């Protein structure tokens, strides 16, 4: 899976779409709802359902990251599946509360 910065991926099991903000340091499989995500333009496999344990969802505009591999994604569309790499759930990155400066 070529997870280039800026590349867009969509869930095979829900409406979620994510954009890669920071690529992983090693090659990983990016998943949503427990299944590999598909490139934005490509066909996605049918008939899959969200795997147990991968149903906490993604929220639009939130960032999710993995400490170990450094990957960070931004949710461009919300969905019910949770995002993971190699079966490991990504963590929500809280926005840094900054005073409005522009």
């Amino acid at each position, binding site marked *: 899976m070529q997870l280039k910065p800026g590349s867009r991926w969509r869930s095979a099991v829900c409406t979620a779409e994510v954009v890669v*903000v920071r690529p992983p340091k090693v090659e990983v499989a990016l998943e949503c709802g427990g299944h590999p995500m598909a490139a934005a*333009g490509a066909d996605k496999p049918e008939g899959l359902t969200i795997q147990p344990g991968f149903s906490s969802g993604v929220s639009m505009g939130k960032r999710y990251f993995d400490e170990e591999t450094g990957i960070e994604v931004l949710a*461009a569309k919300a969905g019910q599946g949770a995002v993971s790499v190699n079966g490991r759930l990504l963590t929500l990155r809280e926005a*840094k509360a*900054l*005073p*409005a*400066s*522009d």
Partner: protein
Amino acid sequence: MHTWLLLEMGADAFPDRIAVASPDGGVSLGELAARARGAAAWLAQQDGDKLVFLGLNGPALPAAFFAAGLAGKAFAPLNYRLPNDDLNKLLARTAPSIAVVDDDMLGRLEAAPGVTLAPRSLFEAKCLDPKLRAAELADVQPDIAVILFTSGTTGEPKAAVLRHSNLTSYVISTVEFMGADEDEAILVAMPPYHVAGLAAVLSSIYGGRRIAYLPNFTPQDWVSLAAAERVTNAMVVPTMLGRILDELEKRGERLPFLRHLAYGGGRMPQPLIERALADLEHVDFANAYGLTETSSTIAVLGPEDHRAAVASGDPNIRRRLGSVGRPLPTLELEIRGPEGEVLPPGAQGEIYVRGDQVAGEYMHRRVIRDDGWFPTNDSGWLDEEGYLFLEGRLDDIIVRGGENISPGEIEDVLRSHPNVSDAAVFGLPDEEWGERVAAVIVPGEGCPSAEELSAWVKERLRSTKTPETWDFREALPYNDTGKLLRRILKAELHQTSSKTRSR
């Protein structure tokens, strides 16, 4: 990541939210996205890899900015306040390009090879053209988002390059997606060719904050627009703030809707910010420091910092009112000496930054180091708690007999004299010392003598920092974003200074 995504997400989730205020009810996020699509379909048919924007700010600005990215062209706003000669020179540097120009500015331009001119009225019609809005757009993955000519306070304007990845990383790491309350509105008086004007587009659209544009700043119009649009957020340069406070005083008003006021783009005189804090007690103030080359803000002095500094009896905390706060947590900042060594707190040197938002690159020239560090050419120091104090451009630092002297500090002392309304300090060549300190004074009521001012500075700083050359004028040269143009004074005084040396 692409800047277009910042608008697309908002338009998907909140299509009816107002993005840009206008007298006819405003432009919604959905409508702005549709306009940008229409404009992009038109731009895709035009030659050139850049979209030049020469005109006042307004609803067409965000449409053009997003459309440029969508069509795979770099957005290159130009400074319409430049004299015609300089403006035409910059325009020629953008070739090959398509230039959208305010209709009443077209007459100022000469034909340049590789540059196609289009009046703004035509561009606005393209934004609304139903056929263009429905057209299929090719999928492009452009790299360069913005080409911005620096203000050139120290020489020829440089064409800074900002990539889509620099801008989007700045926005998504500092702004909560649709985090603004529905009633929030930001008054933007910064022109399109200032990095803060572009950052305001992206931050406001992604944050869901309505933009109210003021095309030409006057304190009267600023205060009126703030009231009419119930403005909650605004950004000003120091010279604007003083005039706004005067206008409020005259009207007996206090901007009841305003919650956040950010300032930056020049040195804020301490008496002025103290007055602002007292006059507008209900407002949160933020001092933002940033450069074109760093996609805007890299350090912020926040509202709590302001209040703590004003309330403190500890001079080390109180002086933070004159700092630009602490670096953003998303980037690294160091002070380095002439040999590149990292300096400890308290020591003055060149400010270096590293982070995703740092572009540090000009057309045909990369300034950023291979390890990602960017030398800002700004001089400053950090206190023990990591607050950053600016001492001006490195080029402005006066080196007198081996001692580094910052003009800003001396200017502050001079401005605090009751009979001085403004002051500029800079170095002039000197046979004995290498450089000597020169001051140009704009007198207030009653004209102080050079002797009186020398004593004033010597008492507060020290004799090596006391200007040796004095000149008195009615006004100082500033560029339109409030930056003092010391190089102009320097050149003028260099001619005549031998005659006016006073000590």
